[in-house]
């Protein structure tokens, strides 16, 4: 198995150009997501979806960043992507085996297997994977599985003009990201932190293979503050199901016992 690969998206380097969105569409030959004016700053793709595997969020805040020497305003950009979680909700919920863990540690949907059951869609704690109505199958970022097979960098990371999207071996990325946060703290940006860089940061997913450096609350970027792979809690439900099944059996037997022979 090859070393685990992933993305480190450093939002302090993002200029919101959306090259990643287009490079992704180009390489994967995805269709557009509709020509809808959202009114949400410069974000007209709004969210990740079946046909949008990279999405840049635009956050207009009435507070400055600490590195800005003046002003009472800041504009944050963040290129969102499938997180390829170490514990991936979609993967664990997929009933067909269409979603697999690859040799690069990424989570991949096999379009030739997926039957479009839609279960992964509600199982993703980040709202990443989605179906396109006319197509029926579930789609999301593949971490450019095809490119990785040939030692190529994923299309978005390659296109990114400012190295906001960094691709590489996960261990190295994590080490680098840690240094980067320290560097930013030194430079007077104490608000910088890593999102999902490790299992410690994000126990619910046991760490993201595509993690982020953020400068505001995750919610500001439409990211959950404490996501959890649903299967981590499923034991409770199975126990309840067991109890319900037992109760039902008991009720049935009871009904037979009490309702049976009296007549």
């Amino acid at each position, binding site marked *: 198995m090859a070393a685990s690969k992933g993305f480190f998206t450093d939002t302090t*380097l*993002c*200029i*919101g*150009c*959306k*090259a990643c*969105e*287009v490079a992704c*569409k*180009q390489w994967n030959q995805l*269709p*557009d*997501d*509709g*020509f*809808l*004016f*959202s*009114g949400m*700053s*410069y974000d*007209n*793709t709004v969210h990740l979806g079946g046909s949008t595997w990279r999405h840049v969020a635009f956050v*207009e805040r*009435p507070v400055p960043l600490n*590195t*800005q*020497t*003046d*002003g009472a*305003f*800041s*504009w*944050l*950009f963040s290129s969102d992507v499938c997180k390829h979680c170490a514990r991936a909700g979609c993967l664990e919920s997929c009933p067909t085996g269409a979603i697999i863990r690859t040799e690069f540690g990424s989570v991949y949907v096999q379009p030739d297997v997926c039957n479009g059951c839609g279960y992964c869609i509600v199982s993703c704690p980040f709202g990443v994977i989605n179906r396109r109505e006319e197509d029926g199958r579930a789609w999301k970022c593949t971490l450019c599985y095809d490119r990785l097979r040939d030692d190529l960098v994923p299309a978005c990371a390659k296109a990114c*003009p*400012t*190295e906001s999207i960094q691709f590489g071996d996960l261990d190295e990325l994590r080490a680098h990201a840690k240094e980067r946060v320290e560097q930013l703290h030194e430079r007077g940006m104490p608000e910088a932190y890593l999102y999902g860089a490790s299992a410690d940061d994000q126990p619910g997913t046991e760490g993201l293979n595509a993690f982020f450096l953020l400068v505001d609350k995750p919610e500001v970027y439409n990211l959950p503050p404490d996501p959890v792979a649903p299967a981590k809690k499923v034991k409770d439900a199975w126990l309840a199901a067991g109890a319900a099944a037992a109760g039902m059996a008991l009720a049935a037997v009871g009904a037979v016992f009490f309702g049976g022979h009296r007549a």
Partner: protein
Amino acid sequence: MGTSFGRGGATTFPGDLVNSDVIVIEGSNMAECHPVAFRWVMQARERGATIIHVDPRFTRTSAVANLHVPIRAGSDIAFLGGIIRYIIENERYFKEYVVNYTNAPAIIGDDFKDTEDLDGVFSGWDKKKGKYETRTWMYKDVDPEPAGGTRESEAGEKGQPIQRNPIQAEHTDETLQHPRCVFQILKKHYSRYTPELVEETCGIPRYLFLKVAEALCRNSGRERTGAFVYAVGWTQHTVGVQYIRSAAIIQLLLGNMGRPGGGIMALRGHASIQGSTDIPTLYNLLPGYLPMPKAKHDKDLATYLRLNTSPSGWWGEFPKYMISMLKAWYGDAATKENDWRYDYLPTLTGDHSHMNTVVDMADGAVKGYFVMGENPAVGSMNGALQRKGLRQLDWLVVRDFQLIETAEFWRDAPEIARGDVKTKDIKTEVFFFPGAAHTEKDGSFTNTQRMLQWHHKAVEPRGDSRSELDFIFKLGQRLKELYANEYGQIRNWPIRDMTWDYPEIGPLKEPSAEAVLHEINGYTVADRKPVEGYSSLKDDGSTACGCWIYSGCYRGGKNMTARRKPYWEQNHLAPEWAWVWPHNRRILYNRASADPNGAPWSERKKLVWWDEQKQEWTGLDQPDFIVKRGPSHRPSKEARGKETISGVDPFIMQADGKGWIYVATGLQDGPLPTHYEPQESIAKNPLYGQQCNPERMEWIRKDNPYHQPYDDPRFPYLITTYRLTEHHTAGGMSRWLSWLSELQPEMFCEISPELAEERGLKNGEWATIRTMRGEIETRVLVTRRMQPLRIKGKLVHQIGLPYHWSTKGLVRGDAANDLIGFVADPNVSIQESKAFTGNIEPGRKSKGRRHATSGRLVKKLPSREQDRDLPKVGHKPESKHGYKAEQTKEGNI
């Protein structure tokens, strides 16, 4: 820039911005419009450089800059002038650099009067002609060549006549104390550009202004450098050239030119826009910034050469370039006896630039029009007037990828939709030819850093798609055939004699682009061997060269522009990647990176230096200097041409080898940048009685109405236009692509929450925007990124409008340029689209009216034209075109 430093091209390249300690981005939204070049700015920031963005809007560039300075659109000279004053008053200039490498010590003639003396006008205004007589601006005791000096500068855009006598200051004062020296004149000129005035003019609070000035000063000198970055946010004004001049002055004062991390980076918007001025599809130039002959002056070759050859500086080589070009064009037909067929060239009688062509078109004087890879019906000002012009043509040829608005102006235009104009009433015959893409043809682009890069043909064009090369070549062949029986007439001889024998290659028998490049590079006539560079060119007809500044790009028969040695195998200047003019020099004027003695100013900022041992200039870059000329060299009095360049003259294209803080000759509208208000402003000029640039080009005609100069009650808001990362200019290359269209799917305007409140506008809903030229509807983005400015206690609101959309493509919307009138900078005829006034109201109330076709949109008010100009400047007569007819029809020449 041409007039300040000698060449109009960007003096550096984006990659070198990494070495900057401070980068001021003004008049450019670099992160949005040039994201990949911005890569280097981000790297500089990460290395600790301070990034400052001065812009009316808080853009994606501002978002990642250390400091955003909101400015009133159209007030940049006041701001930059304020910085100049700050540098001088606080003695923060790089004295050794200024004294040695600039014309600051030069003494100016006694007749010169500054705008300070004449309330906003320089000496020499000719009321009758409506233009300056620039003689009084000259150095003391230097007699400029009378009127005829017509050699154009290498201005990146339209070059200007520069009078090329030995313009070397006769008198200098190296102590910079003489009251008539450039330095003192400069000091006086900007003495009123105080922080208070900057605040009052630009809406920039004092403390912010001081932050910028201090950051620039702090990062200059031997150890540190700063760079300026601009784009069309500066050029598209009635004083556009002077905006750039202001930055040039700052960079010269701070000693930032020719040094790593310094310079002025001009960012251009099209793949080969630099190339299309170098090898100009511009009326006033021949390839390599050789001027087109002027009817009145350049009657024969001898006169033309005399008027254009500079007795000092590099332009002393002029005849070699001109004769080699004629030789390339006319081959054997060009002989010494027939003046190399100079008499084949058509001549100019005035300004024949685009906007004049359009009004001529609208008046029926132009019959046939070729449009190739451009969409003027959307991308040009006053779209309705543009389209009116198209309707008057007999025939129109459009070459593009798809049916753009210009190709279908007769079918799909606002005035057609409205019914003001009927398709069947339009007589124009239209030919649409599908163009080949860059992947379907060989050829070179010249990028913003003057780099020629070759793109190879990957696949054959499909269907009837052809390259422009093929189209023009075959059109030429046909015309040669058509005229074959009419060579009795002299006027047809150029067609007969024009060399047009490029090898035809491939299945489509296309002309070989490499053969054309070979001709551009130049060759020795006898054996057709490519020349090594422009220093090999001769004025005896033994060499031919299509464009002398590109000479060397095909050196040794090798296509240098196709070189692709990976950057990691060479230094950061990457000299073996493609080819840069001139002579593969990456940073211009790099002689200035060394001190007068030839040693680098500092280890940290070394680039080119004098090697005592080898007795030559050496370093990381190709020296932009005469390699063997030592720092101690001083020319003799008798020296002529390039022999006049001394060892301490880094600006070798300038007649005196110095960086020009003060432009004694070469500009139409003054030797020093002066703050003038835009044609349509929200404020009276706070500095001078003269409101606008007196030399600006106006087109006073019914289909091009102007608002009142300021305080027009009908149009209380300032509007500025721009583009977005997600689209490309007029949209011909982006609105048809779904992957780009979905990212910015509709036309919108950007306004502040305060303006939204004032006018009852809501985010996401509709607004109607009006000027006298037209009315459009847009979606509304309410954002704190648009910040109202407080000017003299009054809130000034600005409206931002991207201009990508029109009636065709996947995503559509009204075209912003339909709002803008024709008015332009006098030096380069570039229109003012970055600052004008208008009004906004909520809702979709536009009826799609355009003044040019639907008549008046708003109630009539007195024009108050007199408020734009002082009485002594005069009033412009309403003439055929209405522009200062004297000036532009005859006077410019």
